[in-house]
């Protein structure tokens, strides 16, 4: 009997980071823009150190990949580390959202 590996699920902050990365797209998603996007949409302050930590964890789990982007003048000529969700990552977002939806369905919140 072959056992298919269970789809990974995400913690709350991991979910926010993944969704932000998906929204911003492969050319714009990096730590600073992700933190800004979460702050702008949820209104909560985000420590960039937490974003780095989460990105590292998600990359270790294989849910996203990172690559160096172009150098930008507003960054003192330094490159950005751009984030792209993997197929497993997108599946994990779906699975987590499905779980939340299933749990909240019928509950008056």
């Amino acid at each position, binding site marked *: 009997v072959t056992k298919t590996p269970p789809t990974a699920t995400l913690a709350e902050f991991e979910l926010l980071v993944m969704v932000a990365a998906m929204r911003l797209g492969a050319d714009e998603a*990096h730590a*600073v823009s992700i933190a800004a996007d979460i702050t702008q949409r949820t209104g909560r302050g985000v420590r*960039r150190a937490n974003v780095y930590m989460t990105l590292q964890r998600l990359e270790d789990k294989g849910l996203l990949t990172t690559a160096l982007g172009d150098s930008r003048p507003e960054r003192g000529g330094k490159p950005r580390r751009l984030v792209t969700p993997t197929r497993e990552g997108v599946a994990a977002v779906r699975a987590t959202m499905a779980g939340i939806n299933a749990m909240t369905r019928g509950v008056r919140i």
Partner: protein
Amino acid sequence: MTAPRWTTALLRQLAAPAEAETLVGDLEEAHRARVARRGVLVATILTAFEAFDVAFLLVRRRVRLPRPSVSWLDVKLGMRMLVIANFFRDTVRGLRNWRRTPGSALLMILALGLSGGALLTLVTLFDALFWRELPVSHPEELVGVSAIERGMPQYETDGIPLSLFNSLDRAQNVFQSFAGFEQFQSAAVIANSGQRLTIEGVDGRYFETLGVRAALGQVVGAREVDGVSPVAVISFRCWQTRFGAARDVIGQTLRVQGESVTVIGVAPRAFTGLEVGTPSDAWVPASLVPRLLKSSPGLSFFSALVGRLRPGASLQAARSQLETLWPSARQASADSLPEARQYTLALQPRIESAARGFSAVGMFYRHTLSLLILSSAITLVLSCANLSGLLLARWSTREADLAVQAALGASNGRLVSQVVGESLALSMAAVLLSAPLALWSAKSLTVLLWSQPNLSLPLDLSPDYRVLGVMVGLAGLVAVCVSLLPAARVWSAKLRLIGEVRGLPGRSVTRWGRWLVAAQVALSVPLLVTAWIVAANLHRLEGANMGFRPDGVIVVNTTNQSGVAPAADPVEYLIELATALRAAPGIGAAALSWSEPLSFGADGRRRPLTGGDGLHGVRSFVVKVSPGYFETLSVPFVAGRDFSWTDDRNQRDVAIISEGVARELFPGADALGRRVRLGAQPDRFLEVIGVVADAKLAMPQAANQLFLFTALQQEPPRSLDLSSPLVLLKSPLPPGAIETLARRTIVGLGRHDVVEVHPLEHTRDSALLPERVMRLGASYFAGLTALLVFVGLYAVLNLSVMRRIPEIGLRLALGASAHDIRVTLVREAFSTAAVGLILGVPLAFASGRLVASSLTVVGAHDALAFGGAIALILAISTLSVLIPLRRAGRITPVEALGSR
């Protein structure tokens, strides 16, 4: 607008190289966005916080991830960072705790700040005088050679004869360059205004040896020295203040003792010569000095020598070589100098590192400074004991809190770290308060010590790494000392069960507190006694009969006018000058001399004297004076007569001696008409024509000052013509009026200009400065001590009342009267003070002896001082018990038992 450089450097330091660039880029990008939104200041603060945040993440990541690249070093570094982070958190928590009780926090910070500030002030001064290296290239290679006359204090030595230096220089091979210098004070005229300058006469290799180059123009070199050129290099300060920082200063002239000297260079800003504490204003060729000082060219002396070691040579090698060469060089020099033979043969070398320069001023104040540092260290220990008691009480009320933390798994280390963190917060705040205070008071003290309010400071007081090190060390040490007792208590509190913990301080706390207060009292007694002794000494010195009256005497410094031909008969001119001054309206008496009473001048040094029979010998101050000197200073004659203008070179050499000299040289006999031999100079026999009463003309402190006065008019005519006399005037008129009068009279005669005028009382005040500074310091520490003892005793008694509320209530309920309760408290206060006094009085005896060794008038065991100190401690005890007594009086049995 980029992020602060240190933030990016921090991240680069901690991140892996591949990651560092993107992290720094993120920081820059976020910073730019913040600047646009919230301004530079807020953005910078937020970016700094963010950098720390990311840095902590990086460290934690390095610790937690067991990647193969992680070495033990990383782990250890990470652990250390975590411990530091915890400690930092405890310190911040400590600060927050103190915010809840701002009154007591402020009191503690003030107590620590005032005592720590005083210590820092003194350390700053000590550093500037003794520890700071000269601002020259490789100061550690410099070796200083000075000479001491056998059996004489160093500052009374004339210096090293030029011929002795030349012999040493020819024979030595440890120095790559060897030079000498002589520092002297001189009247000078710059742009028509009279000044007093400190000048160094230097050898041709002086600047080369030190490796000092001119900031402007050139330095004095061998060519100028060999050619006896009338040139000078001026100091940066002199250039700024006296020449208005003019770019065309090179080629301008100044007049020194009537001699025109051309400026050829300006020294670098930091360089002020080799004498620390007496900054030089100008450097002239040493060969020019005899011309300026009107002394015989054969009798040239260097204050000290300085050599730069050859590569590979050590101070020890230099010392052994020079000590070997010294006796033969000294003998050769003595043979070539018959006038100073005896003096030269008595010289001993003193060879030490010159990296920190020479400091005659420092030697003069060293004792005073050391005593004050000792007092301030005691005061600091006292403050620590005081704070330790207060903290002990504070922590004992939080035992319940600590026990809960311990029960939840906090280690002993974490609990103690809280105590130390809180103390550290306190001591850091105190040091931050005391640092500017210390710098300010060091400056004020320097101005006071050197009495130069209008000039820039003679010392470099800018804080260097040593002072900063002392500051940081002090903060750490104080934090550790202050938290020792409370930490020990917290450590043992962990061992107890929660159920046993009380919300009130335990009995042992008040017991420890009482011991601490007793220790404070014990330490305060010597400080109070010392302060009393020092103050009494100064009071008596000020009120003492000095044997002459400085009040109403005005001192006028003069200098030769330029371009005046030598007088045909200098004595004739001096008679004319003295007569004209005496005849001026409002002048009671006038006299001329070459040295000022109460200050060390060239003539103020002691010379050997022998009675004509050669049986008895003494060392005595030798002063050249004109007729009318004793009348001007109100020194009474015991026998014989004053000089008269007819006692000139055509007559026998005559002298007037003080009573002390008469007693020593001619015991039990009449001194009048006897002969005295004056050594060290070409031997001179003088006939005693008068004996004056003993007077403290050299300095106000020392007793038994011996004097021999010679007649000014019997000096060689050339010396008389070239020297500028010092004029002493006795008058009831105000100094300003006399200055106008003296200026008109002296300048009117056409040979001299007036440089400066001051009352003789100012000179006396300057001579008493070490005592004044001692009194200032000692009173400060005594006052602070009294305050600390009061606070300590009050806190302990108050705590004791709080602890005993239930007991007092119970006793009241059982029929004890309020009077009984009061008696208990008063007994507690006075028994603590008594224990302290018993321990402190022997200490005070020891400290009194130490202080009295440098004092002249008051003995070590002044009964009044001890009585005063004991009375003050008892008064403080009484005061400190008043509020706790009131509090105890308000306790009612119902409330007290209810609170139980």
